[in-house]
């Protein structure tokens, strides 16, 4: 063999070994057949709150990565997914405009990976009127969990705070708690009612303090919470407000007298470093999904998809997990349909029939159902801040015991789930 053939052969061998050795672990998505999809595109949309008090766009980024992977692996029975993401800039007016653009101008068959503070309230009715389903990544205010056509994959701040309260009662034997929540309508009067209602049924007194998220004075809030002499304080605020409030609590040395727990927003890689060593092993957080570093096959697949088809700068956080799940759910639903008959009405009908979507990222099987509201994810584990990261402290997932879930539990029974 001449030198050129040797060189070429070595190059090919090297390339092949790289591809198979898992310099990136193998990402599995869609049909997984390695064929590029080149049929008629299927339009799928997403509305995320990117520009504003926080950047929630990582769920759409994860969904985009998954759809890209799907398009390179046979698509939806040969048809690629055209994923259109819009930024609502945390403004309900803008949310209505961009949703109009996606639903009425671009005629998307469904939306997946939405994460926004404002779009549920602004758009739920329009989605319902237009008959389009939204498999959202993360929903926050009450409207996201009370709409016919909106299916959040996460559990929501009410469930999350309830589980945190349940853990505090279990682990710290707390009998009196204070729940802190921003006073935004449909969040301030809803999310802390979960712990309150649960507490009423279980002999735990829970008081609510609604705060102004734009206030400059975190110290007074912590002093007021402490003045009620609770055993536990439940923080149910976004991480941007959480950090200065914990800083104020640290300055008043409240962490040594009162247990602090939090709902899911605190679970983020930058929080332990920001809140500092005072809270080491002293701050427990509820998760809406299983931890980011868990070794289950679907969680590893999520990381693989992000590595192979996502950008390096895309955050690998819980929103990303949620976006991946939403995209996967929609893809598997579409794959079961006749590729030539994919339109909005048939997709909506197929999504409502989803009854047993499993993933090790989720605690329990996920479902959609034909109910008037959706909150299928209502369990999660608890972790505690440990150094610059988190460590699991609960034995597996805790299921929320929120009295408001009675209709959801009835739907679950109807679908034949436990």
């Amino acid at each position, binding site marked *: 063999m001449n030198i050129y053939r040797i060189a070429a052969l070595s190059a090919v061998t090297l390339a092949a070994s790289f591809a198979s050795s898992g310099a990136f672990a193998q990402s599995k998505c869609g049909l997984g057949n390695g064929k590029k999809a080149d049929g008629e595109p299927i339009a799928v949309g997403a509305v995320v709150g990117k520009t504003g008090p926080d950047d929630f766009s990582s769920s759409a980024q994860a969904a985009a990565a998954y759809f890209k992977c799907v398009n390179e692996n046979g698509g939806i029975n040969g048809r690629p997914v055209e994923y259109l993401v819009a930024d609502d800039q945390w*403004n309900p007016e803008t949310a209505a*405009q961009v949703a*109009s653009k996606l639903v009425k101008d671009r005629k998307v068959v469904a939306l997946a990976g939405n994460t926004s503070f*404002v779009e549920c*309230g602004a758009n739920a009715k329009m989605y319902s009127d237009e008959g389009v389903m939204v498999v959202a990544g993360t929903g926050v205010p*009450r409207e996201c969990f009370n709409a016919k056509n909106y299916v959040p994959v996460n559990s929501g701040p009410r469930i999350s705070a309830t589980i945190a309260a349940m853990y505090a009662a279990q682990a710290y034997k707390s009998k009196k708690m204070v729940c802190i929540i921003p*006073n935004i*309508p*449909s969040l301030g009067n809803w999310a802390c009612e979960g712990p309150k209602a649960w507490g009423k049924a279980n002999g735990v007194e829970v008081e609510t303090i609604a705060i*102004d998220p734009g206030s400059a004075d975190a110290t007074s809030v912590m002093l007021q919470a402490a003045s009620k002499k609770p055993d536990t304080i439940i923080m149910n605020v976004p991480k941007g407000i959480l950090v200065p409030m914990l800083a104020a609590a640290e300055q008043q040395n409240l962490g040594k007298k009162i247990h602090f727990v939090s709902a899911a927003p605190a679970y983020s890689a930058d929080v332990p470093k920001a809140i500092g060593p005072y809270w080491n092993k002293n701050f427990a957080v509820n998760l809406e999904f299983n931890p980011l570093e868990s070794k289950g096959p679907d969680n590893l697949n999520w990381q693989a998809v992000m590595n192979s088809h996502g950008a390096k700068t895309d955050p690998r956080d819980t929103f990303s997990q949620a976006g991946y799940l939403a995209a996967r759910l929609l893809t598997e639903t579409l794959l079961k349909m006749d590729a030539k008959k994919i339109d909005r009405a048939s997709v909506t009908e197929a999504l409502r029939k989803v009854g047993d979507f499993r993933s090790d990222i989720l605690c329990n099987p996920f479902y959609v159902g034909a109910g008037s509201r959706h909150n299928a994810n209502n369990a999660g584990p608890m972790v505690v801040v440990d150094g610059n990261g988190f460590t699991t402290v609960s034995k597996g997932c805790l299921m929320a015991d929120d009295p408001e879930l009675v209709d959801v539990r009835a739907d679950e029974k109807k679908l034949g789930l436990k």
Partner: protein
Amino acid sequence: MTPISIASPMAIPPSIDALQIALDRVRRERLRSLLVMLGTLLVLGTMLPWLANAYWTKTFSSALALSVAAAGVGLLYGQLGLVSLCQFALLGVGGWVALRISHGSGLPFELCVLAAGLVSALVGMLAGLPALRLKGLYLALVTLMLAGGFQVVITVVGFPDGGPGWLGRVEGGERLLMARPAVATSDSAYLRYVVLWLAAVLALIELHRRTRAGRSWALIRRGEAAALGAGVNVLLYQTWAFALAGFCAGVGGALLAGGVGQLDGRAFGASESVMLFALSVVGGVYHWLGAIIAGLLLRAVPALLTDFNVNGFLAMVFFGAALLHALITAQEGVAGQVLSLLHRVRARWTAGSAP
């Protein structure tokens, strides 16, 4: 012959006939400019819904609703030199009233808009009371404080969305959208409807400017002493200006609520009132075209940047720079620049056609 000073340029007093001719000419010009305004809005009303897709139809509805409010800001600043930094808060008040009445009693849309305008006019008059004693920067700061107060209140209270009670908020159910007017339920029809209201409000303002009110305002602007000396009731006309500006804001708020369907308390910060004033000045406060441009700047330009996926914060940088540029180079606003351009074009044309 009456004694005349040689230095005076009007050396010969005009005869009665010349005066009559001049007045007739002014009257014709005014009528023509009013017709030009109505004609422009007619063109907008027919072309925009036809050309725009769903995204842009909604955007233009919001933009022109804000133009109504900007007209009020321009009225106060252009005619009277008074700075009001709380007009967006008054827009919120109007929106709140419209939503509450619409959800609560199901009255026709037009009545809701008028009620919103009336309530905002009353509140605007109250906000204008300090203007009787304070001027300039101090008045601006006082109105800013009012806007700040409204921001806190509306964030807590929220906007009505179909529920019962004073606040009209729904608990645990789906939030309702405001009922559209009977004649304009689709988005395109609603855009035309908004243009109609804009035309009506602008015409109302023009009417004021050409009658006694406008003359009184011009005198008040010169100075209270001059106004009092000429027999103008300063209290009445100044308060009336604030009421009218409040009416514009209220109508704008009601139209915005109807377009989007619901309003959110977080979108009514004090900074919005400041931006409304700033962009009204950039648009131009001395002409009705300025109000239209202000509305477009407030909603259409950001929508354009969003459509091109420009990062929202980079868009903010662009806006700030554009604001500075407009303030420095264009005293009469963009409208002034457009009008002077048109004037030059027309002058060149008539100069070219004349021998």
